[in-house]
């Protein structure tokens, strides 16, 4: 059971500033963390390895400093890690990101399962997981809250839906995204930290992946962020006059007027 876990380094705060020129986040001076939901993906990968054997590979597309996060993944229990790092990958939207990750995962060859967090703290789209499955041509299950069993090339999972959960069986290999209900992520171990210190983490470039330069980064993106702005908070209020009964009557007629009831 070989598992690939996709991780992303995100700013460890919600108080980020936006560069008005490029419409991207200003990352300088902000401590980066592993995207919280990705830590559940990593933990689940490690638990599956403990249950079924195999190896866990952590993979991330990001700037050189994302290597530090991949070392942390090794200290927690990943066997190896790969960083996809190239200036050509910069400013990628979810499509270009998923394409790049998919090419790298294909290059890793031997894998039975790809696990991603449900969504990232910064981009918040939740699109990379499903796009990745599409590009790899693999079955996909979103919002997995429990992996029940893996047997004879089949995996039974529970996925969280609005009013309960669904039990889904899928063939392997497959791609899943996980929710925080799935487990409690562990902390690093001392042996893991020692391993992480000396681990070689290869950085694969666009050339290493042999990708079409027009499919990655900003060039490969189908969407561009045109503008980021904080919504203006407008408060509109109307005070209904009259007695309590009169207020109730006019409230009801206003709600009917607005077709709210």
């Amino acid at each position, binding site marked *: 059971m070989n598992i690939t876990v996709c991780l992303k380094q995100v700013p460890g705060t919600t108080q980020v500033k936006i560069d008005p020129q490029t419409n991207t986040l200003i990352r300088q001076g902000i401590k980066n963390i592993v995207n919280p939901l990705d830590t559940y993906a990593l933990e689940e990968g490690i638990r599956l390895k403990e249950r079924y054997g195999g190896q866990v590979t952590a993979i991330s597309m990001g700037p050189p400093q994302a290597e530090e996060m991949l070392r942390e993944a090794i200290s927690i229990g990943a066997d190896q890690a790969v960083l996809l790092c190239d200036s050509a990958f910069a400013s990628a939207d979810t499509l270009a990101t998923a394409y790049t990750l998919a090419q790298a995962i294909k290059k890793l060859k031997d894998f039975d399962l790809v696990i991603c967090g449900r969504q990232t703290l910064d981009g918040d789209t939740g699109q990379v997981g499903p796009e990745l499955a599409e590009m790899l041509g693999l079955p996909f299950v979103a919002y997995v809250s429990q992996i029940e069993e893996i047997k004879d090339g089949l995996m039974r999972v529970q996925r969280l839906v609005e009013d309960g959960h669904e039990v889904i069986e899928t063939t392997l290999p497959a791609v899943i995204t996980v929710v925080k209900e799935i487990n409690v992520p*562990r*902390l*690093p*171990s*001392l*042996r*893991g*930290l*020692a391993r992480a210190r000396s681990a070689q983490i290869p950085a694969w470039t666009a050339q290493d992946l042999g990708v079409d330069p027009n499919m990655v980064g900003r060039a490969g993106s189908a969407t561009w962020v045109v503008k980021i702005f904080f919504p203006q908070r407008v408060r509109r209020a109307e005070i209904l006059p009259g007695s309590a009964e009169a207020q109730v009557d006019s409230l009801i007629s206003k709600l009917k007027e607005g077709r709210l009831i």
Partner: protein
Amino acid sequence: MEYFLTEPQKTIKNLARRIAEERILPVRAELDEKEQFPWDIMKDLAKSDMFRVFVPEQYEGLGGGCLDLCLVVEELSRVCSGVAVSYAASGLGSFSLLEYGSAEQKRKYLPAIASGARLAAFALTEPTAGSDASAIRTTAEKTPGGYVLNGTKQFITNGGEAEIYTVIALTDKTKGARGASAFLVEKDTPGFSFGKKEKKMGIRASSTRELVFRNCTIPTENIIGREGLGFIMTMRILDRSRPGIAAQAVGIAQGALEAAVDYARQRVQFGHPIIAQPVVQNMLADMAIQVEAARALTYAAARMIDGGAKNFTEESAMSKVFASDMAMKVTTDAVQVFGGAGYMRDYPVEKMMRDAKITQIYEGTNEVLRSAIAAELRKRRGRQD
């Protein structure tokens, strides 16, 4: 103060702090209130390799020494010494094996202790034998089928939770202390049961229980070392473990100092934070001085042991006595800085004060240790005459 810890030691200290803050801090008040053994945290510590710290590499440990163990205990105690002592007691329970166990005993038991799969405990104290450890009455009679244990051990840390116990019992009642031997007894051995679970003033998350032996037969090979060495082994083991109690005291006091500084900075009286009052500043400064002095002595004693010194009874006792008296003083002062709020269970300092008290009592009361230090002074002077 800069203690020039090695890189691995810094890693141990940082990770222990992270576990304490992320896993222990959110539940420490509840564990204290409910007197609940912290199994979830023991598992977290195990997964993070903390039980490997004090076990040699050949038995799946990390081969750390006394100082490495002290660093973990200090960091855990800074947040909750009830949790810390449950961890440390497994260390104490394995010292008999580490120091005196046969290769086979080590192979059999140490890997499970290192992985944290099984906790260990050390059982010496009895109703009639506290400071006077030679007054134990539990017997181990040699029979063709093995040793048969009879008697009751009291106040045993990790009692009921641990699976591997080092038990000191008399193999020859006529010889007193020289008739004592050490044995490995596994939980679930027929004739071995657990008595009363104590309700304590502090370190309430930890389990303190009676061990009851009624015709409990253990295999002959479960003796540690030789017959008659139990008492001397115990004294040596406790010399080795006492800096751990000192580290516990330093951790508790460090936690209390930090809480007191935080509170003094935000508590406003007479229009200013109370930390602006010279009388409060003096208290905080004295607390900080005492904590650092105790830490320095503790680390020095631990390094002396790790450096291979032959006799360290005196230094080890000094670190334990000084640090535990310091912790009692500093936690009491922390409650004082908090004023009425400090007396309330909503704030953490009253727990720290309750937790500190035991460090003056267990693993040798400070009185018995002062006697031991004085005996060394007298002996040394005597040799010079």
